[in-house]
């Protein structure tokens, strides 16, 4: 073997050795949390701040509290690229019996993982995304969608528009611009039902992935259909492109309302001044003035607020990462109350924590989240937990809360969850659990 070949072989062996050693860090004693992130690919600008929020919250719990009742949190991440097959591959690579739960961060990946995670007894936390009817616990024991589902989001948007229009939507036109995928199609049944009940006309505009091409969509909206309001279910580049195209046809921004995945800084900053006035839903507050975020600066960034801001601290998607991981950590804490404090638990045990997770206003205040979000109460039957949402508006500099919190009208929604979930159970041959 020549010297050059020997060097190449040695370098390769060193790389392999490094790769082999890395997972061992995650296997050290502690409660293991696999992280499905996307820090590469077209959706990276949205995926990175959420993943940073997750990791910073985990570091905060370890640094400030010494873990959950003394059990350190350990994690390992895998980059899905927001790609379904890579998502499944990552899940298979990271899954272990002590995996506390997985947040797929993608509706497509969620659909691909529901059966697998249920079989592996690993909770799936799909907060504000995923399969909506999975909120019905008897059929989906391992899927948790708190605090809201897409159907709830659609209901809140219609409630908000109705309020803006003085209490009646009769004869109004509402358009839905949506990502032409499982995610984007989720709100359609609810909007169709509400259109019938409230008397408005619904227009649907699918946008093909990744959403760079929307000129035709907005020509129709701005020049032909001329709806009173536009709702959007977009993600990644589709959002900023929609905002720009809406401005280009002169559609008023304050009548354009996105779902919570269409309302963050990467969605509006590229559109510049065109985005001023654009609105979106959210289920947690934007901004920096919350004790939990101040604790992150103190314990994770050593008090260096500028370093934190460089990592999107205080931005919408970073704060979402904090919120999502706080929910997951509290489910672990609750599971420890049931199965033994200070112990490393299995995914199956942590599922019990999820099913009895209740966060009251006092609990949220204790977590440094007073005013940051609203209480949730998850039960065996209700995996959505009764969360609420509000409308925020972009002013060119930051997102500002411009409405009260809205409670979705859950009675018809729950009936719809149940109906859809039971149809799924019949198709898959699942016998729904009894919840007493």
């Amino acid at each position, binding site marked *: 073997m020549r010297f050059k070949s020997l060097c190449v072989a040695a370098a390769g062996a060193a790389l392999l050795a490094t790769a082999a050693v890395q997972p061992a860090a995650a296997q050290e004693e502690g409660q293991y949390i696999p992280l499905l992130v996307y820090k590469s690919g077209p959706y990276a600008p949205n995926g990175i701040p959420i993943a940073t929020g997750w990791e910073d919250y985990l570091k905060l719990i370890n640094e400030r509290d010494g873990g959950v009742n003394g059990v350190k949190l350990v994690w390992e991440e895998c980059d899905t690229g927001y790609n379904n097959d890579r998502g499944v591959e990552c899940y298979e690579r990271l899954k272990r019996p002590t995996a506390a739960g997985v947040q797929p961060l993608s509706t497509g990946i969620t659909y691909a993982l529901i059966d697998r995670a249920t079989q592996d007894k690993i909770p799936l936390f799909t907060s504000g995304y995923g399969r909506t009817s999975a909120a019905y616990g008897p059929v989906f024991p391992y899927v948790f969608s708190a605090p809201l589902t897409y159907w709830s989001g659609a209901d809140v948007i219609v409630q908000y528009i109705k309020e803006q229009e003085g209490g009646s939507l009769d004869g109004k036109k509402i358009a839905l611009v949506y990502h032409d995928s499982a995610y984007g199609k989720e709100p359609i049944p609810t909007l169709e039902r509400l259109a019938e009940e409230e008397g408005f006309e619904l227009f649907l505009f699918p946008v093909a992935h990744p959403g760079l091409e929307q000129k035709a*969509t907005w020509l129709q909206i701005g*020049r032909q259909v001329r709806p009173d309001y536009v709702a959007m279910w977009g993600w990644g580049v589709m959002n900023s492109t929609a905002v720009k195209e809406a401005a280009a046809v*002169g559609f008023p921004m304050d009548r354009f309302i996105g779902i919570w995945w269409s309302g963050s800084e990467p969605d509006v*900053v590229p559109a510049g001044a065109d985005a001023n006035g654009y609105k979106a839903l959210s289920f947690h507050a934007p901004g920096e003035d919350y004790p939990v975020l101040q604790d992150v600066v103190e314990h994770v960034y050593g008090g260096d607020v500028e370093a934190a801001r460089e990592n999107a601290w205080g931005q919408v998607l970073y704060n979402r990462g904090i919120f999502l991981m706080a929910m997951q950590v509290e489910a672990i804490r609750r599971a420890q109350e049931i199965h033994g404090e200070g112990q490393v638990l299995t995914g199956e045990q942590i599922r019990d924590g999820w099913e009895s997770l209740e966060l009251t206003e006092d609990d949220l205040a204790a977590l440094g989240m007073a005013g940051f979000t609203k209480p949730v109460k998850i039960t065996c039957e209700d995996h959505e937990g009764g969360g609420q949402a509000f409308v925020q508006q972009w002013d060119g500099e930051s997102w500002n809360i411009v409405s009260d919190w809205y409670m979705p009208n859950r009675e018809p929604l729950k009936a719809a969850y149940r109906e859809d979930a039971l149809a799924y159970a019949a198709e898959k041959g699942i016998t729904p659990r009894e919840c007493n």
Partner: protein
Amino acid sequence: MNLRTIAIWAVSVPLVIAALGFFHQALAAAGWIAFFTWPFYFEVILNGLLQGVMYSLVALGFVLIFKASGIFNFAQGSLVLFAALTMVGLIEMGLPWPLAFVATAVVMVGVAIAVERVVLRPLVNQPHIILFMATIGIFYFMDGFGQTLWGSDVKVLDIGIPKDPIFILGGVFEGGLLVQSFDVIAALCGALLVAVLAVFFQYTRIGRALRAVADDHQAALSVGIPLKTIWAIVWSVAGIVALVAGIMWGGKLGVQFTLALIALKALPVLILGGFTSIPGAIIGGLIIGAGEQVAENFVGAAIGGAIQDWFAYMLAMVFLLFRPQGLFGEKIIERV
């Protein structure tokens, strides 16, 4: 393109547009599509043509490299992204945009020379498929390298091009036809770029050498034209074309990872216009742009919507059935 061809196009294009309009009007009358109005139809056509120029800007880069080397450069989209990222990065570092433009052009020339030295030169005389595979490698490298260098954040590229909606032909159509000022300026830039390229190819020594290499590598080498230098020049020109496309697309959508994917929009343009023709890239872009906008706006809703991406390819495939070399591509004649 001679005068006769131009005359044929000048007569046939309005006829085709009118015929297409009457066709959609008939579809609407039969209830097969939801609506049709002539003002909206012309608005869609106009906006589609402007969109088509944007596609042509990307397609031009492909054509340049294919003409000179017979390589389908899969990496052109990533060159667009890399150029835009570099320009934004330099502007963020405090450079005024004209200076950043020049500096980025220099960087793109550097990239071109590196590609020629590191990738193309070792592969001289290899089959075209090998060179094509190499450009796939360049695509992924440039994507990753660009992100490593400049980050994954969505960046704003604003060089002061107005973006306000404007209304034209108000006297002809009630309320006028809406176009975006940004699209109009982009179209003018595209036209200017094509004019510069045409002069470069027709009237400069290097341009003539490029055409000679495009016609026959061996013959060009035998008369002393340095193939490697020509390749470096062609990749440099393609890099600068990518920079212009990057500024236009980045200014429109923001500079982000997905910009590299707009190369996929150039493919039907190339299939339709021909891989070796600069006018083909322009006219192909216009046909694809207008065709997909008309399809999406009038037919899309009737068949589920979001059809413009695949419709562009379908339109190109239909053209392929009748002209396999594309509208302006060179006819392939192989003697056995």
